[in-house]
Structures are given as C-alpha cells and as structure tokens.
C-alpha cells in the first residue's frame, strides 16, 4: 500500500538529521520519527490522498525538529537505556522450575541419607538436571536491559551442559551416600565431567552479548572496579576460589563419612565465608600499594 513511501520520508528524515554525529539516542529518535511519519502517510493514503501530498502533509504536521535534535545531540551520552522487562511467563516458569530444582535437591539429599530409595534419588537428580538446564536455556534466551539474548542453539547447548552437569552432581551425591554404588557414581562423575567440559568449551567460545550502553558504562567505571582494571587479579581470584571450593567439598565429603551429615555442612559454610572474604579482599584491596608490591 505504501511501496514508494520510504523515498521521500527517508529523504526528509535524513535531511533533518544531517550533519549530526549520530549518537544511539539520535539514531533512536530518527527511527521513531520515520516510523511515525510512515504511519501518518499510510493513514492519509488510506483516505485517498495521493502519496506526494500525503507525504507533504505529514512532514508539515511534524513541524520543526531542529531544536529537539540539537537537544538530543547535546545530551551527555548518559546512555539512552531502553529498559527491557522480563516477560511474566518467563518469571513464572523460572520460579516453577526452581521449585522442581530445589525439590530435586531435597530428594537427592534424602536418598543420600537412605531415607528414600535409590530409584527416587536417581529420578530426582535427573529431574533437577532437566529443570536446571531449562532455566539456563530460557534465561539465556531472554533479552535484558543490559544483554542481548543468546542465539537459540548456543542457549540450548548451555542448557544441555548445565543440565547434564547438575544431574551428574545429583547422581554422585546420591551414590556417595549409599556407597558402594559404583555404576551410579561412574555415570554421575562422567556426567559432571561432560557438563563441565561442555561449559568450558562454550565459555571459551563465548562472544560479547552485552549492549553498547552497558559496555560504555563499564568502560566509564573502569577506575572503580579492580577486576576489570587488572585481569591478572581476576584470574588469581578465580584460581583461589576453585582451590577454596575443592578443599571445602573434600572436607565436606570427609566429614560426612567420618562425623556424619550433622556437622559436615559446616565445611561448606566455611568455604562460602572464605569465598566472600577473598572477594572483599581482592575486589576492594585495603590499600593498592602493598598489593602492587606483592605481585611477583
């Protein structure tokens, strides 16, 4: 119905915005003006007015944009953030899946403590893995205010790796509690490994999905955040964190077998506390000078 319309509307809009350094906010405004002009022209054309007069009238009604354009161009690049709200269906399904995940973890724990049968534990581990994978998939598919959605295949692979890994963790916990359940431990450990390898591969090939404004904001704040300023510190933090958790999990397992579940969870609490202290010390160093000296 408006086949030739872009020509002169586009021309007018281009002329109005010509000579301006196109910031994202200006680009946004330009696109908005163009869409509204198009809507007006198609309405007028629908009333039987010929295209040229319709375009002329629409442009006339638009009025003078120069002041507005100057205002937007002069605006501090206080980024023009279009807030993206989570879809209600996503929020509801994530909560529902989280309940499945938590319920699965509880049943896995009960099965490990021999309160319920091995079969239930295995089922719960698989259900929890499925729920965790589904949460991962749908979360990555969401566009957020700061991030673009991940492509479907990639999101599905992330979901798969997470799900397999989580189910594996569940199987290992179930089987370790009922030692010796060698086949289940074997399958579980293999799943954990597979999931971890999958996540490593995906993480290594991950490209940027952060929106421009968020990148700009991050670049502006670079002075405050130590980890983005000093990638070596971030890497060291990661290694320390893994060490803490390996020790915590080993202590948890050892205590579980010797002292029992009544006290073994304290190992995990200690690990968590140590992680937070480490984060606080490394992300906000008490004094940056001694830290420089500590570096080899």
């Amino acid at each position, binding site marked *: 119905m408006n086949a030739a319309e872009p020509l002169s509307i586009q021309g007018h809009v281009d002329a109005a915005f010509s000579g301006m350094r196109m910031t994202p906010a200006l680009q946004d405004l330009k*696109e908005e003006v163009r*869409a*509204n002009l198009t*809507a007006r022209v198609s*309405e007028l054309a629908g009333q039987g007015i010929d295209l040229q007069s319709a375009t002329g009238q629409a442009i006339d009604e*638009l*009025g003078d*944009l120069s002041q507005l354009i100057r205002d937007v161009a002069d605006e501090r690049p206080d980024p023009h953030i*279009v807030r*993206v709200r989570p879809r209600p269906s996503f929020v509801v399904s994530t909560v529902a899946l989280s309940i499945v995940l938590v319920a699965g973890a509880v049943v896995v724990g009960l099965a490990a403590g021999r309160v319920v049968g091995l079969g239930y534990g295995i089922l719960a581990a698989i259900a929890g893995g499925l729920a965790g994978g589904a949460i991962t998939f749908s979360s990555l598919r969401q566009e957020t205010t700061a991030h673009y959605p991940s492509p479907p295949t990639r999101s599905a692979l992330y979901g798969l790796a997470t799900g397999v890994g989580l189910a594996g963790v569940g199987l290992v916990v179930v089987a370790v509690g009922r030692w010796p359940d060698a086949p289940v431990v074997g399958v579980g450990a293999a799943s954990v490994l597979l999931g971890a390898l999958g996540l490593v591969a995906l993480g290594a090939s991950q490209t940027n999905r952060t929106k421009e404004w968020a990148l700009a904001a991050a670049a502006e704040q670079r002075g405050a955040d130590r980890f983005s300023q000093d990638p070596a510190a971030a890497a060291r933090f990661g290694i320390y964190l893994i060490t803490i958790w390996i020790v915590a999990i080993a202590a948890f397992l050892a205590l579980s077998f010797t002292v029992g579940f009544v006290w073994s969870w304290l190992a995990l609490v200690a690990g968590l506390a140590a992680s937070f202290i480490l984060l606080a010390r490394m992300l906000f160093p008490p004094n940056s000078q001694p830290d420089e000296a500590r570096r080899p």
Partner: protein
Amino acid sequence: MTPNSTTASGSEPFAADLLRGHTDTIVLSVLRSADRYGYEIYKVIRDATGGEYEIKEATLYATFRRLVKDGLAEAYWGDESQGGRRKYYRITDAGRAVFERNVRDWTATQRIINRVLDVKGHIE
C-alpha cells in the same frame, strides 16, 4: 468565562499556551488505557480535541523524552513484522500517580479560577 487566547495570532478559541503546559499530563492520560506509539498518541489527542487543536509532533517528541527520563513512562520497540518497528510508550505506576495528582491539581485550580472569574463577572 473562557480565558482569551494568549497567542499572538489569537486565531484559536482557547489558550494554546495553557494547553501546552499540560502536554505531559495529556500524554499520560492517553497512555493510561493502552501502550501506544508516537503517531497514535498524536492522533488520539487530535481526535479528542475535535481537531480544534493540533499539538506539534515535535513538542510531543520532547514530551516523550521527558516522561521517559522522569520515569513516568517507559519506551520499547514493538515487534511489527513489516513496515518498520515502532517505538511504543507505556505508562509506569509513577506515571499514573503523577497523572492523578496533576488531575487533582488541575481540578482544584480550575475551580478556584472559575470562582474568581465569576465573582468579577458579578461585579461588572
């Protein structure tokens, strides 16, 4: 009793300035029932004034930006499959609150002005 036009042209049967001062409230009012894109908002206002008053679209764009900046409305791009995407505006809860407050203020102000003008009218 209607205040005379304060514009230089004086061609409109009402005070365009006065109306312009309430553009934000008018746009919020249009958004109360549904999310709309720029031209739709323009059209609703034009039709509601019986075509007597055509707010300039340039003014409206400035209003949209102000409303979004003040958190009274949110903007999002629609997902039209053809004919280019449109930028829609949605009123926020803050926007509804401000709208109601403005309406209350306007009603009270209008009552006072009417009363004052009526008194003058009686004296003359």
